[in-house]
């Protein structure tokens, strides 16, 4: 057997040009297959890790997936706001342990600005119930303080004490800047691998002040109308909240504050079993059309939506593997006729037909395994190179870890397919070497 393996190696080395091309094509196929799988798995993992410990997410009436996407993942925009009073009313329910208000809709140089309260840094959890940690400074204190996500600070090169200006809307370039109200960087968060890294956190009070001026001040630019409308919306919400201002005041700390409408809020309950009745309460809230979702129950809905695209992508990468292995089959079959003589010589020195068969099978195996090894190497090389880009561009942090069980299974299946494909030329040569004897009549 050793002799046969040595022969397989040397024979491949002799045809290294073709062999290398075959290995490269298999490697590319494996790279695609494993890459798609890795991205699929890691993006899911990353989504799942973005939020934990939150029982409910409440927003204006919309589809659960939509609410989940814009509130936590910062994908898309809210269609409607929540009145401050509604937020306060729900936050004061006896089942509620804590709430985190979220006010979205502004941006800073392409990064989303999140208006929130100190509760965010207190109660927000991600991954395995991890708390947010500061790498520098402190959390929000004064109304014009801002706490930056790690990626924001790193990409824009901000340090503590820097003053930044927030723009309206979420585009990279915005024409309406809230220049009157610069924010001071008071804290920078440690990296989390979630959208928090790419978010500028400000206080609700700061956000209100900034929008109040925009809404009431003169429209200096031609695009002011759109902005006015948006400002007006907020103003209307404020008026709405003022209308309820004569309700009995509460001792609760956040209830004493008075803010404009918010986009959504996260709810933590005192006891988990109350979550369904609480969800029903919010969904049937009489004064405003609201939607409450359980993050853990909504994620699967999201996967169902993206699942079809994932399957299509996976199907394509499987086909590419088939193409790669077919390339190997073609390369092996083309070499067969010129190798019949070689096989006759091997037979004459005592190689059994089974060994001739094993020689070809061995070559297919070596090619496939080399292709898989190269493909995996390319995958890790690509991940190392692509990791910063994926994080900066897609907000997707892909940790570089050992291959998962599913990836190993896929690789093993490719190896198996390669070996099975090697049976075809192996069997043909086996038949030849039985029939040809030692003299080849070509």
């Amino acid at each position, binding site marked *: 057997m050793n*002799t046969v393996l040595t*022969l397989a190696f040397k024979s491949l*080395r*002799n045809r290294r040009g073709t062999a290398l091309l075959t290995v490269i094509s298999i490697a590319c196929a494996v790279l695609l297959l494993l890459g798609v799988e890795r991205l699929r798995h890691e993006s899911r993992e990353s989504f799942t890790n973005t939020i934990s410990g939150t029982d409910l997410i409440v927003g204006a009436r919309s589809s659960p997936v939509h609410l989940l996407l814009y509130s936590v993942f910062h994908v898309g925009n809210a269609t409607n706001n929540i009145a401050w009073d509604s937020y306060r009313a729900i936050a004061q329910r006896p089942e509620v342990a804590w709430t985190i208000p979220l006010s979205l809709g502004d941006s800073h140089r392409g990064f989303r600005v999140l208006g929130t309260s100190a509760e965010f840094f207190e109660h927000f959890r991600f991954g395995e119930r991890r708390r947010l940690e500061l790498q520098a400074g402190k959390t929000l204190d004064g109304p014009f303080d801002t706490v930056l996500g790690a990626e924001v600070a790193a990409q824009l090169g901000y340090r503590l004490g820097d003053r930044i200006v927030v723009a309206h809307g979420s585009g990279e370039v915005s024409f309406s800047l809230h220049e009157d109200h610069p924010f001071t960087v008071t804290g920078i968060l440690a990296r989390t691998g979630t959208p928090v890294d790419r978010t500028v956190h400000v206080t609700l009070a700061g956000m209100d002040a900034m929008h109040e001026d925009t809404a009431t001040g003169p429209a200096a630019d031609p695009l002011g109308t759109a902005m006015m409308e948006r400002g007006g919306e907020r103003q209307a919400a404020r008026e709405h909240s003022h209308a309820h201002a004569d309700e009995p005041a509460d001792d609760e700390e956040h209830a004493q504050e008075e803010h404009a409408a918010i986009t959504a809020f996260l709810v933590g309950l005192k006891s988990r079993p109350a979550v369904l009745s609480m969800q029903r309460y919010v969904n049937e809230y009489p004064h405003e059309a609201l939607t409450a979702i359980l993050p853990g129950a909504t994620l699967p809905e999201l996967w169902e939506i993206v699942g079809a695209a994932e399957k299509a992508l996976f199907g394509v990468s499987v086909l590419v593997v088939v193409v790669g292995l077919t390339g190997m089959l073609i390369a092996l079959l083309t070499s067969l006729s010129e190798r019949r003589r070689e096989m006759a010589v091997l*037979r*004459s020195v*005592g190689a059994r037909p089974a060994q001739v068969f094993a020689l070809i099978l061995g070559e297919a195996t070596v090619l496939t395994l080399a292709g898989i090894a190269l493909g995996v190497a390319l995958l890790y090389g690509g991940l190392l190179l692509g990791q910063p880009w994926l994080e900066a561009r897609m907000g997707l942090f892909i940790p570089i870890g050992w291959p998962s069980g599913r990836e190993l299974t896929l690789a093993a299946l490719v190896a198996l397919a390669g070996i099975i494909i090697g049976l075809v030329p192996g069997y043909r040569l086996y038949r030849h070497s039985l029939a040809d004897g*030692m*003299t080849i009549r070509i």
Partner: protein
Amino acid sequence: MYLGRSLTYLSACPLLTDATRPVALAPAVVDVHSMRFAWRGTTQALLEIEALRVAPGERMFLRGPSGSGKSTLLSLLAGVLTASAGEILLLGHNLAALSGAQRDRIRADHVGFIFQMFNLIPYLSVMENVMLPCGFSQRRRLRAHQRGGTVEAEARRLLGALDMADAGLLARPVTQLSVGQQQRVAAARALIGAPELVIADEPTSSLDADRRNAFVELLFRECREAGSALVFVSHDPGLAPLFDRTVELTTLNLAAEAQPPTR
């Protein structure tokens, strides 16, 4: 099966030289009885041989025009093809009674081959080509070991005896060797591990007359050295006088007249 085993052990005994060989006891290297061969699916026999015997150490010249079935006969003697009827004994083993794997084993252990051309594996070095049979046969590996100290030393010794020991030649890819050099490498490969039988199928047909005789002389010397019987097949009658015995295949083959010379 047991008989086969014991015969294998018998033939594995230290090689007997011509002078001491007890002729009556040693099995003939090749012993063909009433053998008939037809290609599968045809009824007409290509070969029909009543008796053919090659004694140990004998040098036999098998002459026949091309298409007379020489190559088929050699494949039969080597056990790559099997006779349709009758028996072929190789060192006492009835090839027809053995399994394919057993025939392969006997061939690997006891028979060396030299072909007309394309003898060498192009992706192996000269040395690797010569040592190749030792990779498939433990017996030949052991015998090469006994004779040369190591398989490598024995390969080097054989190449030296065939005027191929030049370091420059050994380093060259086999595809860059001349035909004559390739044939000598093939001869060294056939002889390594001292098989009882060396079969040479037109090994000199691509050599000119001078080099042809020189090659045959070298082959004789090394066969004698290794104690191997030599069956040398050629259409060239000029070589016949050099051998112990000449057999005309057309005379030997009873099916010859009936057979149109296609193969």
